[in-house]
């Protein structure tokens, strides 16, 4: 159990930040897709800029993981259709239920139990993808 404790703490931190930043709110997602506030763009923008800096620094300093390997981000597979079509389908759902796969769980923690319906839907969607994966253009 000890080796999982650090992941539990990361998760708690993640949940708290998503709630306190209001990024778990359906309203904030609506507002973002309407381009009516800078809030969500500020969050995503500063996250990316900070991420770029952290990754460049870790490369410069040759930082290693706890397992002793260099810190490395998994490389995304090449392809176009999967990213543009899959991304758009995701966007439709994200804007409809205002929750992406992290906030879904966090919202349940805030007591919004009807979000479990969204989670069940997401599991069904994942299952459908698994079934039709080989028939889809990637």
């Amino acid at each position, binding site marked *: 159990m000890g080796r999982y404790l650090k992941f539990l703490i990361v998760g708690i931190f993640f949940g708290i930040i*998503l709630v306190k930043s209001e990024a778990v709110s359906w309203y904030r997602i609506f507002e973002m897709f309407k381009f009516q506030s800078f809030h969500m763009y500020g*969050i995503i923008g500063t996250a990316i800029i900070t991420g770029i800096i952290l990754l460049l620094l870790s490369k410069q300093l040759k930082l290693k993981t706890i397992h002793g390997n260099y810190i490395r981000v998994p490389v995304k597979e090449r392809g176009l259709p999967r990213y543009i079509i899959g991304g758009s389908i995701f966007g439709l759902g994200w804007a409809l239920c205002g929750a992406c796969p992290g906030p879904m769980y966090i919202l349940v*923690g805030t007591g919004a139990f009807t979000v479990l319906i969204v989670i069940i839907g997401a599991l069904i*969607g994942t299952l459908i993808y698994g079934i039709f994966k080989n028939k889809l253009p990637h």
Partner: protein
Amino acid sequence: MEYILQPWPWYISGPCFAIIMFILLYFGRSFGMSSNLKTLCAIGGAGKRIEFFKFNWKSQRWNLVVVLGAIMGGFIAHNYLSNPINIDLSQNTIDDLKSLGFENAGKSLLPPELFSWEAAFSIKGLILLLVGGILVGFGTRYAGGCTSGHAITGLSSLQLPSLVAVIGFFIGGLIMINLIYPILF
């Protein structure tokens, strides 16, 4: 304490997400929340029939622990670290939502018009939440990641596929909000 109870500004919370991504990389893992949906399908036995779910899900237990923590974090932040919710939405958003039939925008995290028990278990509400979930689940797996995997991790590491995926997120989102919402609500 008052600062903690207030909503946190974007320039505090944004960098925190990058730090979470980085901590997970330091632990030798990568930040990706949607992978848990695949893991849960595998735990449910989907691997018996579908090749895609045939993998050693036990290697993904750490990510489920992150989810467990996230649920706890949501509980803690909402119950102990927040003033009564009053999201400072732009006036245009409040007006637009009103014209779609959403009253009191920003007084709660989620609109009761969609997520109250009553709304969620009406036929229309149930279909909307379920279909929304299906689109998220299918889309994220097809695109190979969601907001955490593509928008944060992928863009931070300057990967082109993630940029394309994020452009896709916005194409879908803009279609939903601007073209489909007026039909639905």
